[in-house]
């Protein structure tokens, strides 16, 4: 569980770097180009009040992922109800603390789990994880065979389109490959865990995108 959580954090980080938040586009909040560094890390400062509306969070994520199974929806709302006290009560990004980050990741992770389950079905029309070897055979025990670079990049593009509503940059696509590598780091792929690892990878990549501020803000 801890490993999974850290993996999610890593992907979230990569989303930060990968989203290339450097120029103001239509619909952006006003940004101060002279105040975009914190602890030596380039980022973008959000104005206050930040565009966070947490009671919209679940519905938006469900819509984005096209989750329509009532049982899954009920489970996700149940999770939201468990986590909501950790979320900023006034919906202000300035109130986000570590617990809130965790809560957002947990909720997004539930949505992504439902999305993965939907795409796990053999006959499903896959929108996010095309080419992922969810049904890997025993001999497929390498990253290249389970989720090769091109497949992971395309999954990243699909997830960004799905949750952020825009085209992924090449830099972002590459960051998903890095995230995959970090996710698999130190783990031995075997004939018995290969399917689970692919499945976990899908959820991890998805959660990184779905828990980003760009995904949860309006």
């Amino acid at each position, binding site marked *: 569980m801890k490993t999974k959580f850290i993996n999610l954090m890593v992907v979230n980080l990569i989303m930060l770097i990968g989203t290339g938040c450097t120029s103001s586009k239509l619909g952006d909040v006003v940004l101060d180009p002279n105040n975009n560094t914190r602890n030596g890390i*380039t*980022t*973008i*400062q959000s104005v206050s009040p930040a565009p966070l509306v947490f009671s919209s969070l679940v519905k938006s994520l469900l*819509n984005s992922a096209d989750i329509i199974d009532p049982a899954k929806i009920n489970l996700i709302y149940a999770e939201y109800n468990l986590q909501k006290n950790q979320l900023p009560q006034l*919906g202000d990004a300035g109130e986000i603390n570590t617990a809130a980050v965790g809560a957002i990741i947990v909720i997004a992770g539930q949505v992504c789990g439902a999305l993965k389950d939907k795409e796990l079905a053999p006959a499903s029309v896959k929108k996010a994880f095309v080419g992922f070897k969810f049904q890997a055979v025993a001999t497929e025990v390498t990253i290249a065979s389970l989720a090769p670079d091109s497949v992971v990049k395309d999954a990243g593009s699909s997830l960004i389109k799905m949750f952020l*509503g825009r085209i992924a940059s090449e830099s972002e696509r590459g960051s998903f490959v890095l995230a995959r590598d970090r996710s698999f780091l130190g783990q031995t792929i075997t004939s018995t865990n290969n399917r689970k690892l692919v499945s976990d990878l899908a959820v991890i990549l998805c959660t990184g995108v779905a828990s980003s501020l760009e995904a949860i803000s309006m």
Partner: protein
Amino acid sequence: MTHVKVINRVQKGMLKPLVLVSLLANVSFAETSLQQAQLLYSRLAAVKLSQSSPVLLNISQLIEAKKWKEAADVAIGSDDFSNVSLFQFFSPLSSRGENPDIELNDFIAMGIANSFIDPVTGKDRPYTNLVDGDFSVTFNNTVLSESNNTLLTSAFVSRTVLTPANLKIVSVQRVGVPPSAAAGLLTSRQFLKEHAIAGTNRRMVHYAFREFLCSDIKEWKDGDPALTDEFVSRDVSRAPGGGIAGAQQYQAECRTCHQLQDGMRNAFAYHDFVETTARAVYDPTAVVSKINLNNLFPGGMVVNNDFWENKATRGANDQRFGWRGPLSGNGARAFGQMIGRSFRFSTCAVEKVFKQVCKRALILDEQLIKESLARGFEGDGYSLRGLFKSVALVPACMGVKQ
């Protein structure tokens, strides 16, 4: 910074702060019509749609055809607008903690129902109803309980979509409450539960001003020495702590709020919320006892009826509120009319809608935009839906070129 460096930082234990920063990074792209449609819908209806949603595609096509008003109408006509966006609009107004994420209550339900098109006239109901209307709602044709919120809580928990078919306005607020004592949301069970429970009913005025005039009493208290104090009640010490210092404190602080607040709280002299029964009660035969309790200064005002008078009419307050309604009267409805007919009522609605739709507060330089929107709001019959639309279409709001 390269990704490798990021990972190194993670390994050095900087993970959590970094993730927080990543969440704080905000980018909203709205370059294509589909992206603009998503932005417009999510700002108005407070929910993002699936990229393949037919609604989103419809809005996108309208935007491509430069039909922005029609595109906004689609968002405003959605169930999400009523059930998510308006819910978020009214929920902070309904609780003492001003929390946007609470369960459905009669205050929120009344606010949402008042924003549905009136089936009789085919027009929007005025937002002013919310402070001076004699109405309540039924849910699935069932009258709301006076002692609990179960009906609406159940609807909320089961995520029932509120529509004009299941959430209907009824013309009498509560049995036994005459029209002169009904003031829309101000006399709803929820508002009374939050602000008339215990205390001295002063909070009713305090929060009526906070929620509908966007003015906390700290802003509208009047420190002018010429201000009299005939309305300050007898439960207010004229020398808190005793001695000259206490008397000075009364003159410098206590009086500046109480003269204004106490003069108006009489509007709710017959309203109460009884904690033991969880009921909002109204008894026109007797002033609520808690109001005249604690006789610290026998010469202070004793409340004998629900006559109230507004003393927040001088100097800066006159300009701040732009009063155009009655400045004195009997009962809650007249008080609500005073609130609802002020110009500040309209600009307050604009400020709240702007903050919700545009995700930022209006700045000082946008005073003209605010006033223009407020006049438009009034000219449009105080249509809240119309105001949401007008605000969304202000170029300064979403930064989208229309």
